[in-house]
């Protein structure tokens, strides 16, 4: 009973810690993005509230919370209401399986630095990311607006298409770790990160994860100069905020996934593992912001063609070649 209680408390503590860190990181990523984009476009970005604009996220939250929560007249009310939450929820739940540090020895116990080390962790993340699709699709559909629906369908087609390439890009990673567990995947990269072992997989992964997260240059579902704001055109107040925050939580998730799958997780010299982990996540997030600041948006059919005719065949080829190489190495 004592043991059960302790582990329950531990899980709660870990959950709280992760929630706090992730939400804070998401909030400040918004600020970081605005500032970095500002710098790239030769302007300052938010700098009025707090030192260097550090309190800006707080003000944004207050503003969104106090705005009217408007539901369009002919919308499908219940779906409209719960769709944004789905996006944020799916992103948050992904962290349950992300290991951010080696197991910690505390009070004579081994405490794994992960909420739950599922042995199918990778598939778990996949399942949640496919759940996240529903947030976008249902939100867009329920708004009962032309642009929302267009955005939703774009998002759906794009997510379904690129999820395939994403999954195939991770097959070599699983092959070299011989496990779906994220912990095992990180452990397998003790010598050198997968980035060096599977560079093609990394490139495919990065491209498809960009499409998966609907970020520039693959932000067709919310392309503001084509379809207003896509699936969240009709949203306002905190529900828009949930979409918005969900997107930045997602950015953190992507950073964590990239770190775990390709950058060697918490492995690194000199600095404590947790610091390495956070640094790597932030670096990946910076890459995405950088891409947003410097890349144009392709046409929609080009996007689909690229996904189906280039990325997926390439990923398949990569799986075959990596499999053959690892077979040859083992025998």
């Amino acid at each position: 009973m004592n043991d059960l209680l302790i582990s329950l408390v531990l899980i709660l503590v870990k959950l709280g810690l992760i929630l706090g860190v992730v939400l804070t990181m998401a909030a400040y990523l918004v600020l970081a993005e605005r500032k970095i984009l500002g710098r790239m476009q030769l302007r300052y970005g938010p700098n009025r509230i707090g030192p260097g604009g550090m309190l800006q996220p707080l003000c944004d939250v207050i503003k969104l919370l106090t705005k009217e929560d408007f539901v369009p007249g002919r919308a499908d009310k219940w779906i409209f209401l719960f769709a944004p939450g789905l996006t944020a929820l799916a992103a948050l739940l992904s962290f349950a399986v992300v290991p951010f540090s080696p197991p910690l020895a505390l009070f004579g116990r081994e405490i794994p630095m992960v909420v739950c080390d599922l042995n199918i962790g990778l598939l778990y993340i996949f399942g949640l990311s496919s759940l996240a699709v529903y947030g976008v699709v249902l939100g867009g559909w329920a708004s009962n607006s032309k642009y929302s629906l267009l955005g939703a369908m774009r998002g759906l087609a794009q997510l379904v298409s690129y999820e395939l390439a994403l999954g195939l890009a991770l097959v070599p990673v699983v092959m070299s770790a011989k496990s779906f567990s994220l912990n095992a995947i990180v452990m397998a990269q003790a010598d050198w990160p997968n980035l060096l072992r599977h560079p093609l997989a990394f490139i495919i992964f990065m491209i498809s994860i960009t499409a998966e997260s609907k970020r520039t240059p693959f932000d067709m579902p919310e392309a503001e100069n084509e379809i207003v704001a896509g699936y969240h055109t009709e949203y306002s107040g905190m529900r828009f905020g949930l979409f918005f925050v969900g997107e930045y939580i997602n950015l953190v998730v992507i950073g964590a996934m990239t770190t775990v799958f390709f950058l060697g997780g918490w492995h690194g010299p000199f600095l404590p593992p947790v610091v390495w982990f956070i640094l790597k996540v932030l670096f990946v997030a910076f890459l995405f912001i950088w891409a947003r600041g410097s890349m144009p948006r392709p046409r929609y059919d080009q996007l689909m063609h690229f996904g189906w005719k280039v990325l997926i065949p390439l990923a398949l080829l990569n799986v075959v070649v990596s499999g053959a190489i690892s077979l040859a190495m083992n025998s």
Partner: protein
Amino acid sequence: MTTALFYILGIILLAATLMCITRRNPVHAVIYLVAGFFALALMFYLLGAPLVAAWEVIVYAGAIMVLFLFIIMMLGLAPQEVPEGPGWQRWLPLALLSASLMACTLLLILEDPAAGQKVGGFYLAPQALGEALFGRYAMAVEMVSFQLLFATIGAYLLGRPLPKGEDQ
């Protein structure tokens, strides 16, 4: 606790499916069905099939149902009025069938000693499943993958634009 969870999930599954099949709006039906599939996936997990559970979510909820949604949205299907009340011809086979199916199951549960035995405590690691799939069942996997290929070609052919004059 997990035993109770299994029954709760089963009831959620049945309830969600019941809601699904009675919805007039196909989008609602799909949402209920996805909820049901989640419950089913968790049941699979409880029955010691983590990999199947994950695939249930990824394939059924993440791909197949999404495709249904996509088609519904693309065709802009409005909630369909039921054209006519179901006559006895439609209910009768169903009622008889359901009754006899349930009767079969109940008989099995009551009569067959095997059905009363407990199931549980079984856990199949993904690796073992993968070894079985690509070892003993490699031929089946090949056949299924060919079927997928043919289905892709078939879907592509069906999806081409209609020749002029065939459109009504």
